[in-house]
């Protein structure tokens, strides 16, 4: 079985800025994977590489076994992406937006699923409302609906709860968790909040590793802050000295046991990868 996401030796520069430096990452099908880090860490860059919005300088990225550059049509068809920005097309209403998204992904006669997705996201009564007239939270829900409209096995969310109120945040995470339980692989890029959310989501995964050049020396400051179960990536505390650690460190039980014992759980194989903060390079 192919991994849902496979990133091998990926480097990405924007001019002189090094956004990603030799990143490896493997996410198995069905995982709930948190990609955590401060602003400028490279979370969105990594998500953009997965979704084809950017191209890696070197390395290889594949989704469900399909190379995102050479087999981009297959890889994109298997992935639903919720972008970080609240973007929308002001010409159309919610239903039209979802119909277009459905068509872009080659799905015909999708009205029943569109209705169901709108129902789950409490958008049914806004179906005929122009996107401009929606609140920020509603627009966020439409973005989630757009990512799900073609029933992708891999769902990628970039800061899915940024700028939404607490109630909506909780309901969105519940919904995302349910998608994971239904078999979707979920990759969520999140600032720091995801780690907190994780604790309310049994079986979900997040690995937090903090490396600070200011704490404990240039390389020696690595310390585990919190180690939930499963898999995730985290890196430094916004000081540009981040380290991302390869996730999948065990299931929920292991994590809880580790947390109780006060021991850290190292990433499998001890692999760590430098993730250079863009902000720090300026």
């Amino acid at each position, binding site marked *: 079985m192919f991994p849902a996401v496979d990133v091998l030796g990926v480097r990405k520069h*924007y001019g002189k800025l090094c956004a990603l430096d030799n990143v490896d990452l493997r996410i198995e099908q069905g995982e709930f994977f948190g990609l955590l880090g401060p602003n400028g860490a490279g979370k969105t860059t990594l998500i*953009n590489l997965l*979704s*084809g*919005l*950017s*191209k890696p300088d070197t390395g290889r990225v594949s989704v469900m076994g399909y190379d995102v550059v050479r087999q*981009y*049509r*297959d890889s*994109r*068809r298997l992935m639903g*992406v919720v*972008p970080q*920005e609240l*973007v*929308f*097309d*002001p*010409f*159309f209403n919610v239903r*039209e937006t979802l119909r*277009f*998204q*459905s*068509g*872009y*992904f*080659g*799905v*015909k006669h999708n009205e029943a699923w569109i209705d169901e997705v709108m129902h789950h996201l409490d958008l049914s009564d806004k179906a005929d409302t122009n996107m401009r007239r929606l609140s920020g939270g509603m627009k966020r829900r439409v973005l989630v609906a*757009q990512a799900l409209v073609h029933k992708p096995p891999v769902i990628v969310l970039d800061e899915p709860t940024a700028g939404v109120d607490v109630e909506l945040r909780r309901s969105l995470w519940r919904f995302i968790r349910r998608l994971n339980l239904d078999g979707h692989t979920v990759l969520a890029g999140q600032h720091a909040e995801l780690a907190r959310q994780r604790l309310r989501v049994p079986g979900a995964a997040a690995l937090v590793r903090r490396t600070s050049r200011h704490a404990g020396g240039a390389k020696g400051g690595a310390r585990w802050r919190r180690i939930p179960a499963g898999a995730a990536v985290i890196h430094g505390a916004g000081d540009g000295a981040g380290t991302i650690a390869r996730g999948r460190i065990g299931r929920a039980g292991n994590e809880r046991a580790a947390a109780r014992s006060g021991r850290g759980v190292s990433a499998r194989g001890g692999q760590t990868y430098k993730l250079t903060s863009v902000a720090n390079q300026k």
Partner: protein
Amino acid sequence: MLSFYTLFHKELLRVQKVAFQTVLSPVLTALLYLLIFSHLLEQHVEVYPGVRYTAFLIPGLVMMSVLQNAFANSSSSLIQSKITGNIVFVLLAPLAYWEFFLAYVLASVVRGLVVGAGVYLAALWFAWPPLQFPLWALLFAVLGSALLGSLGVVAGIWSEKFDQLAGFQNFIILPLTFLSGVFYSIHSLPAFWQVLSHFNPFFYMIDGFRYGFFGSSDISPWISLVVVSGCFLVLAAFTLALLRSGYKLRL
């Protein structure tokens, strides 16, 4: 092909939703040109023997509207999508770069033809130019709008703000259109400007289109057809290469 068709359909629906701006407004602008120029020059200028100046002017204005609106369609749609960020929905989709190209260019052709037809029908109030070879006229309208639609894709991708796109429109498209023989025959120009006009691809589009109406033109319609087709093929290849590379779209 459903992906292509969906993008094409979305583009047409966008045009329809703002039809005042995308269709009625350019028709009104062309009619104002017609009203003013025909009023001023009707008694003084006879370009083709036996053809009123107003009748001569109508095909030129129709084609000018076709070209300008074809350019405006793809370029403005792309820059709006880029600036508002919703281009991401198209970029995330499993659309091939040639489907992206076809959808935007065909939507531009449709808008160009709709506006052109609107200008033509409204202009019949002023004069009734003969439409001797409608297929020639249609051929040049389609090729010309495809060429400008493609140029609009390039401009929309290249521009990062509305100001840059306006520069493209005001410093390239508008002068080339106005100096292409919309309002005159190039035979009425001094020799130097006549020669220079032959380097303007818009001249061949307007002249070929006008041939479809009057059966006469400044140069052979076959030459115009070869030049316009050649320009379209070169520009289409360039645009496709641009899209394939992800220039300014996939960073």
